[in-house]
């Protein structure tokens, strides 16, 4: 038996050249009894190795360890014999990482001295004097826990190295263990390792010279070869060391923070207490029996799975948000339970949605409960700071996200390392169409000047494919916190993130799931900010408090659904994109669950899995659907027999193909990472055979597998869609009943959502809302709703003006006289505004009420002489009598505020040109289907979605609305100039109207009309 005790995976970034999975599989195949994963100052790869061993039941004992370089002369590997040693290792990695910038580490001698439990493998240096010094040092601090690593790498230094190891063994009496110092699992990976080294050193592989590996001996070598290379004693010692290392990641037990449970309660009783209080709040005194039954069922499941602390931790966080008035909404597999509704984690009323808790938490599937909580995006930091202050920084850190090589980064880096010119690589990357599934990238590069028959290009293609998916570095998860009872660094190493004051652990979401560690997702959602602001404005103006439960409690509102069905959804949540808007009139949602489907259906998963049209067809025809079995009906019944949600696919695998809970969980994970590792194909046979065994026909089985593949990576869970649908409905309700308040709330929460402020304001104008420009005497920092008689209008705020600072403006507002400023001079003398800011205000025409037009205002401001003490107060300067044209005003508006409330460019063009043939967005409804139409509009959006090969969707905006234009690839290719360059475009095409009234124009001829706007700019005025 042989154990390999030094092995680096590709989580030793740009050094190791094999996945942890490949390494453990190969080690087991070759017959190694144990394998230590010893990445450099990291345990990031360990969990993957652990999961792979568990998944494949490999007969391999995994040892956790890490390699460290103290300085030029000392390299050691620390191995964990037990849990204490593991905690120690995590602490040392944490200390070394926290001392240094993100991505690097700095080990101190003290760190090694403080090690009391880990075993140490010494990798001796070539310099005998150094070794003598460190030998003495290690004898002193590691007397019985130190081993010498003897390696034979056939690189010319074996003889001297072996002699030195033997000498050290004799001198210090440290046992010697054999090692290949593994960097990859198979000799074929040598080129990959060398390329990674070249990338790491910003060199080319050709220039690496003697610094590269001279051969592939640092792979997992066959046992027979090991026996030939090393003395038997050295090999036996590896096994003895491995036997000492009994620590397993199974032992890691997550301890929830105890402060969420007050004295006198257990977690269970406190959760019960909170739920009961919530029941009273949510349901009053009369709780329907069936809901009580569901709650009890959920509580029993929570108790059985011991999830009380998890629910209480989230409850604690949302209670904080509630107390601070921060709007939030929970989503995820456990979030839509009645318990979460009672704990006020979510606002999805179980009476409105037929919630089946098993649908979300499944005991059989043994998944950890998933609750993500979205908070107002501009106030999430308060929640994060609360978590840090409550649990302390030593017990809290963000989960990591492993950033892997993707096509572009792999192509660029590998290309550079092979010696290709950077400009050439950039050119290829910019021009390669990764979405073109008809021509793979390998063929496309030929057209871009890289001849795939040459050796270098063949190497480039091979190595890029090898390296895609390799981890590149760790980054921070968007908001997944791991909170522990004790010091987190005893559970997992913590390192610095690039963001100041943020720390991340070395494991990502999947690793945490594997080990059953729980994370709390604290995410940011712009729409919650917008909704909260809208609520506040409504309360201020009406005195009536509106809230999410209030709106959902009113039940489905037909008028709101009419608005949704007409795709009048600019600015609302989720169902606002072009694709969603063109689907709305087809699906015509009439109730809450329709929205849940609507949100999930316009996704790459269902679209690529070809599920959209069958669903729409069945929904429309209302015909009775025949299900192959009652089980399948139970799963697919609510979506007309078409799998739309990720959960349905998993459930189908369980009920129709007989997957166990564990297998279904594996399937779920394989789906998530199918594109990366193709593991999903392993399930094909099992799934199809399982269904055939249960009597389903092979057509159904194959179709289901294809649908699963289509879902991979893009499937949308029902549990998330259900929460999103609440916010989508609430935002639609607000848009319908309180449009002015809603637009103001949205604009004040920007940046967020799909549309720019300019597009939102154009939409507001189309809803006959008056918009008043920024004014020095009327505006506030934010946008305001102004009630003018009976009319509600929007007054734009200073925040829109580029180059202003909120503090300065609040100072200005505090000094603004009651009747307003009367001159620019007064503004400048009373408020300390920089020249740039005054100019910015002038450009935004904010002085129009006191200083004429923007040109005159700027001319006054530019006068430096009047600022000088001697000339102060003199205003004999000649006035400029230029008056901006409407077009100039519009351009200036766009330049200074990115919006123009006065004129739409198309409106301006119409003033100077007679264009009888042109149809505008509003007029298209009167045009017959298949008629030829001529459109003119600003190009506001060009989208070439991956789900529609070769088609570009273009949105043309005119003063009456937006039009969706479809441009086929051939049309685009033949009319590249207008297609790529035009900002104002004329489209001559054919109007297509679906039965539901959705209008698309299929482009024929494209004409760039941008010059029509430019000619408007020609001034024709003189100084007088």
């Amino acid at each position, binding site marked *: 038996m042989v154990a390999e005790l030094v092995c680096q995976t590709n989580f030793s970034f740009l050094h190791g050249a094999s996945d942890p999975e490949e390494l453990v599989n190969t080690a087991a195949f070759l017959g190694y009894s144990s394998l230590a994963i010893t990445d450099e100052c990291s345990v990031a790869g360990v969990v993957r190795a652990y999961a792979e061993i568990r998944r494949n039941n490999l007969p391999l004992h995994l040892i956790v360890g890490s390699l460290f370089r103290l300085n030029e002369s000392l390299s050691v590997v620390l191995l964990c014999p037990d849990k204490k040693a593991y905690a120690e290792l995590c602490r040392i990695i944490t200390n070394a990482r926290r001392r240094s910038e993100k991505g690097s580490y700095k080990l101190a001698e003290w760190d090694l001295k403080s090690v009391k439990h880990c075993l140490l493998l010494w990798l001796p240096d070539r310099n005998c004097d150094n070794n003598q010094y460190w030998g003495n040092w290690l004898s002193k601090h590691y007397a019985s826990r130190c081993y010498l690593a003897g390696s034979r790498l*056939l*690189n*010319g*230094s074996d*003889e001297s190295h072996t002699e030195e190891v033997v000498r050290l063994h004799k001198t210090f009496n440290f046992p010697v263990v054999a090692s290949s110092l593994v960097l990859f699992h198979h*000799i074929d990976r*040598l*080129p990959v390792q*060398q390329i990674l080294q070249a990338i790491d050193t910003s060199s080319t*592989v*050709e*220039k690496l*010279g*003697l610094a*590269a*590996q*001279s*051969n*592939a*001996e640092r792979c997992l070598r066959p046992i027979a070869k090991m026996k030939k290379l090393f003395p038997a004693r050295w090999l036996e010692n590896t096994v003895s060391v491995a036997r000492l290392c009994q620590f397993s990641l199974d032992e890691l037990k997550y301890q929830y923070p105890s402060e969420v449970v007050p004295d006198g309660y257990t977690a269970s009783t406190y959760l019960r207490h909170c739920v009961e209080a919530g029941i009273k709040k949510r349901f009053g005194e009369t709780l329907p029996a069936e809901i009580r039954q569901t709650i009890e069922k959920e509580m029993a499941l929570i108790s059985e799975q011991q999830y009380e602390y998890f629910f209480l931790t989230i409850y604690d966080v949302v209670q904080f948000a509630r107390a601070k008035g921060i709007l939030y909404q929970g989503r995820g597999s456990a979030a839509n339970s009645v318990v979460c509704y009672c704990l006020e984690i979510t606002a999805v009323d179980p009476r409105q949605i037929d919630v089946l808790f098993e649908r979300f938490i499944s005991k059989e599937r043994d998944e950890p409960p998933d609750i993500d909580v979205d908070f107002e995006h501009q106030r999430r930091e308060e929640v994060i700071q609360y978590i840090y202050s409550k649990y302390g920084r030593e017990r809290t850190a963000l989960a990591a996200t492993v950033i892997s090589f993707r096509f572009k980064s792999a192509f660029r880096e590998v290309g550079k390392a*092979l010696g290709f010119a950077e*400009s050439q690589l*950039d*050119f290829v990357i*910019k*021009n390669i169409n990764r979405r073109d599934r008809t021509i793979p990238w390998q063929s496309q590069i030929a*057209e871009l000047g890289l001849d795939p028959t040459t*050796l*270098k290009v063949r*190497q480039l293609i091979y190595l890029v494919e090898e390296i895609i998916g390799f981890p590149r570095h760790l980054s921070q998860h968007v908001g997944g916190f791991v909170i522990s009872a004790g010091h987190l660094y005893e559970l997992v190493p913590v390192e610095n993130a690039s963001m100041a004051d943020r720390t991340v652990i070395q494991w990502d979401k999947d690793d945490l799931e594997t080990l059953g560690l729980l994370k709390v997702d604290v995410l940011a959602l712009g729409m919650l900010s917008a909704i909260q602001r809208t609520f506040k404005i409504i309360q201020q103006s009406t005195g009536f408090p509106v809230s999410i439960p209030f709106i959902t409690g009113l039940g489905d509102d037909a008028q709101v659904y009419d608005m949704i069905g007409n795709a009048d959804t600019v600015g609302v949540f989720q169902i606002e994109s072009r694709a969603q808007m063109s689907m709305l009139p087809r699906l015509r949602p009439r109730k809450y669950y329709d929205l849940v489907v609507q949100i999930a259906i316009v996704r790459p998963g269902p679209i690529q899995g070809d599920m959209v049209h069958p669903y729409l067809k069945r929904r429309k025809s209302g015909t009775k659907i025949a299900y192959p079995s009652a089980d399948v009906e139970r799963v697919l019944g609510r979506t007309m027999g078409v799998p739309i949600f990720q959960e349905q696919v998993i459930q189908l695998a369980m009920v129709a193909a007989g997957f166990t809970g564990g297998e279904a969980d594996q399937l779920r994970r394989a789906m998530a990472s199918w594109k990366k590792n193709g593991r999903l194909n392993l399930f094909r046979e099992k799934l199809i055979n399982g269904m055939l065994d249960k009597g389903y026909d092979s057509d159904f089985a194959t179709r289901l597998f294809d649908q699963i593949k289509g879902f991979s990576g893009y499937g949308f869970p029902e549990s998330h869609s259900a929460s999103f649908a609440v916010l989508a409905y609430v935002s639609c309700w607000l848009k319908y009943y309180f449009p002015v308040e809603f637009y103001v709330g949205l604009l004040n929460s920007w940046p967020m959502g799909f549309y720019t402020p300019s597009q939102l304001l154009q939409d507001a104008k189309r809803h006959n809302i008056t918009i008043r420009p920024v004014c020095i005497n009327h505006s506030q920092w934010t946008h305001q709703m102004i009630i003018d008689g009976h009319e509600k209008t929007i007054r734009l705020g200073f925040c829109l003006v580029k180059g202003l600072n909120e503090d300065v403006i609040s100072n200005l507002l505090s000094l603004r006289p009651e009747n307003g400023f009367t001159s620019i001079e007064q503004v400048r003398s009373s408020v300390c505004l920089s020249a740039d800011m005054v*100019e910015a205000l002038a*450009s935004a025409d904010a002085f129009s009420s006191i200083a004429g037009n*923007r*040109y005159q205002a*700027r*001319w006054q401001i*530019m*006068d*430096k*002489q*009047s600022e000088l003490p001697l000339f102060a107060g003199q205003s004999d*300067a*000649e006035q*400029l009598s*230029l*008056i*901006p044209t409407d077009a*100039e005003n519009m351009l*200036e508006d766009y330049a200074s505020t990115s919006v123009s409330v006065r004129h739409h460019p198309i409106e301006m063009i119409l003033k100077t040109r007679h264009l009888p043939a042109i149809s505008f967005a509003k007029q298209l409804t009167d045009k017959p289907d298949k008629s030829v139409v001529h459109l003119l509009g600003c190009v506001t959006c060009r989208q070439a979605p991956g789900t529609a090969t070769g088609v570009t969707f273009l949105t043309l905006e005119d003063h009456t609305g937006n039009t969706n234009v479809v441009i086929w690839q051939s049309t685009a290719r033949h009319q*590249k*100039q207008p297609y*790529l*360059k035009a900002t104002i475009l004329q489209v001559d095409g054919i109007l297509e109207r679906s039965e539901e009234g959705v209008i698309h124009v299929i482009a024929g001829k494209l004409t760039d009309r941008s010059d029509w706007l430019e000619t408007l*700019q*020609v*001034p024709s*005025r*003189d*100084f007088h």
Partner: protein
Amino acid sequence: MLWAYFHFYQLTIDSGGEKDNTAAVIVYEAKTNRVRQCNAAASSAGVAVGMGMAQAAALCQSVSVIDYCEQREAHRLMALANRLYQAASDIVTFTPDGLALRLDPLIRYYEGLENIWQVLVNELNAAKVKYAFGVGWSIEAAKTLAMNKANQLFHRNEQIRQALSACPLSATELTDKQRNALKRVGIHSLQQLLDVPASELGRRFDNTLISYLCALRAETFPRVNYYSPPDTFFSLIEPSYEISHTEQLLPFMRNLTDEFLTFARLRNRFSQQLCFSLCFREIPSMTLTVGSAAPLFKVKQWESLVSLKLEQIVLPAPVVKLTLQVDELEDVDEQTSDFFNNRVHEFAQKQLISRLQARLGESVIQYPYAGDDFRPDQLSSFQQNNVKVERHHPLPCVSLLSPAPLDESPHIEYGPVRIQTGWWDGNTVKRDYYIGRTDDGRRLHLYRDSAGAWFISGMYC
């Protein structure tokens, strides 16, 4: 005063000598990701100056891209100035792509503006460059008109005034900041700017703008450095075909040498070193320094040295351009001709090396070097510095040109050293190297290939 300004808006493209007018060519500046110049074919495909590379490539996939190099344009501009210097003396260059000529002193000399103009136009046409021009009462006025592509020869001030009035501010030399400030008070054209009283502008802008406007109106005398032909020599030839054989280079190098000798003779100077550069399309250029211990004044004398030099080199790629640069020129005096003045009689190795270095250039003297590569058969390289590289395993003193099969059974003293690398250049090696001692006491550098066959690759002394 009357000035003409020529703006060579596609100097790099013109320097390349377009073979095929239908092929789209752009000059691209990577630093700013901007197309700097484009020929007519590229323009008709929709490519415009100022675009990014991605958009240009998307509009015209077959476009040829030339990297922009300001220095190259500046050289070309100097060559043009040199050419025009034969016809006009008051030339001011504006690197990289413009030059101004003072016309008024020449009118009498050439008996009329039209005549001098024709001479200049002929020269520029002969140089095959495209240009836009302007004629005005000051350099600034002429330049503004040229940038606005006025392309008209004005005789009267009124014509100039009218043409200037029509110019947008973008044609002037105002800074982006100044232009932007003026644009945002509605001043877009030069006319509008000139109509603003200077006192008003003075309250709002610094002196540079006022000075510029004064210069534009020719209210100030231009303070410029006139072009004078350089003291050092530089010339280039871009042959119309690519040269693959060294003997074909000789006539071009002779022409350059001749050009230089004429240049030197006119100044009564000489040089002992000619520095040629051979430029290739893809790889960096090669410098050929031809030195002479004594001053040489005849083309033939130099030619024999140049041809000797050429015999020693192998062209790595076809030559697309040759340049000759002579920076160190000395005055001719009576001492110059004594060839034996500083002769050294000691020919110790080091002196020989340093003398060879002095005469042939440092780069041609090289030391044998065990290269930075694991593959022993890739080691017979040379380097300029005599530095040793530390290696794990001792290399043989004699390396066989091609390995010889081993037909005896030497005793293995050292090894194996496994070399399994070199995939990147197609010379992948997978061998185990050994040092073996034969029965007669020779030490051999041996290897065994992946098929198990044994070879001798070198010998130890």
